[in-house]
């Protein structure tokens, strides 16, 4: 049996080697003792925001473990509360409505931010200062259709027969999304078509759907091919950005870095960065770098 024993020993050694190799490969991420584990959601604007905060923190000597493209609000919030990440850029309305399901909402935007901050602080997290820019969910239609049916508000979609709305999967069941829109504007006959995030404009161009859910700062909206419908009842909320961050790592110094970046994110700035990444296909990392450098934050 000596031969068999030798084979088994060799096999175990091999297995051990393979596992060590795997650990070594996975190792660097763990060995870096990353202080801040920064995550982002799953769309380009979040990649830009993530890079902005990441590079600014690194420039001030912090170690950042970057977990990009985690998923929608619901998913990334779970990643936060289960400790897989400890910070990420979030839209204030998403905090208040999607994470905390608040139905009684403050009358001012600043009130939303204060409410969000209070709710997060009860759980051991906090919010950095809000950005000047906001990016809300919106509904867009083709320009020709808007003219044909005289569409100005979201409620006007009731005028159109056979309306289909293309949107990302998680939008469907949200009060601050499709569900709320249907209830508030009485759009009972609208059909929901689940389309992945990056393919909505393509679906609209190819006439696969009548309308799509967009983000108000999306670069394609600046081309003039689409009309964004108004949401006077604010179904889609107040959506300035703040970084949700675990209290234990949110030292005054860290907050100072984050707030300095946020202060520079005006509406024009974010749209310009979206154009650069979404239309001109520049990498979020290079665009963030250029912006931070131009504004003395690196």
């Amino acid at each position: 049996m000596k031969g068999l024993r030798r084979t088994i020993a060799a096999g175990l050694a091999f297995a051990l080697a393979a596992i060590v190799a795997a650990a070594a490969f996975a190792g660097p991420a763990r060995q870096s003792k990353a202080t801040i584990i920064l995550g982002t959601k799953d769309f380009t604007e979040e990649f830009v925001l993530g890079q902005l905060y990441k590079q600014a923190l690194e420039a001030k000597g912090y170690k950042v473990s970057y977990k990009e493209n985690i998923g929608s609000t619901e998913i990334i919030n779970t990643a936060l509360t289960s400790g897989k990440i400890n910070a990420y850029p979030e839209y204030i309305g998403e905090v208040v409505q999607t994470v905390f399901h608040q139905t009684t909402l403050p009358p001012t935007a600043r009130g939303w931010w204060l409410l969000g901050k209070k709710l997060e602080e009860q759980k051991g997290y906090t919010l950095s200062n809000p950005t000047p820019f906001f990016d809300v969910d919106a509904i867009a239609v083709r320009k020709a259709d808007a003219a044909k049916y005289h569409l100005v508000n979201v409620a006007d979609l009731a005028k159109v027969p056979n309306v289909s709305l293309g949107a990302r999967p998680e939008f469907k069941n949200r009060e601050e999304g499709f569900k709320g829109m249907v209830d508030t504007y009485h759009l009972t006959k609208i059909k929901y078509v689940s389309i992945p995030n990056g393919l909505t404009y393509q679906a609209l161009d190819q006439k696969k759907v009548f309308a799509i859910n967009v983000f108000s700062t999306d670069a394609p909206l600046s081309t003039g091919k689409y009309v964004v419908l108004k949401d006077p009842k604010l179904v889609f909320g107040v959506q300035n950005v703040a970084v949700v961050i675990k209290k234990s790592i949110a030292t005054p110094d860290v907050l100072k870095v984050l707030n300095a970046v946020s202060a520079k994110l005006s509406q024009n700035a974010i749209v310009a960065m979206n154009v650069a990444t979404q239309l001109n296909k520049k990498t979020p990392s290079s665009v963030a770098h250029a912006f931070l450098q131009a504004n003395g934050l690196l």
Partner: protein
Amino acid sequence: MGPHLFLAAGGHGKVVIPDFGGPSGGAHGCIARNGLFCWSWVDEHWGDTLQPALIQHLYLTAIAVAIGFTIAFFAALLAHRRNWFETPFGLFSAFLYTIPSLALFQLLVPFTGLSVTTIEIGLVGYTLLILFRNTLTGLREVPEDVIEAARGMGLSPGQIMARVELPLALPAIMAGLRIATVTTISLATVAAYITPLGLGKPIFYGLQSSFHTEFMATGALAIALALAADVLLVTAQRALMPWTRMRRAT
């Protein structure tokens, strides 16, 4: 009420918006038109996007196949010696195999996080069935009389395994390795849904930003990798076992 734009606390400094540059290739170039395959992009980003993704992908695949093979091999050895082991392990690996990969990766995240570990556990799970079945089949198909003859020549069970059974089982084992490898290459692209690693990363990013070249080029690269791996393993198989070539019926 409307959403009030409000200035962040702590200073009104001027915001400088630098020129990020137009699309590579100009306003009417391939990228501006979002063409299906822009060589300029591939050229420009081979080093920072495609090559790292390719190397990560090779690592992910190699580690998964190595670990999967080790586990499956010893499981097959055990099942060969103790027949009762085949059913539980076979059912276990078959069960793993039928779980859609997208789901399995998501189910692992709460336990092992957004990490390479999650990906590797999933990928290893998928290799087990084919490697186990093929190795076991290969071992079982060794003709009894050959083993008898070896026993008659005075070889110990360990020597029989090493010098007779394993070499004869090698074609089946290699076939299994080949299938497992290409399957793993394919599944590893899906793994990027959980954490952006490997060739799946540019594919998903390309899909998410509707950037044709990114996912077309990466898709083509993934296909080329899988085919290259397949050809390589077939060649290795033929080189190691020239006698298998004569097996074809016609």
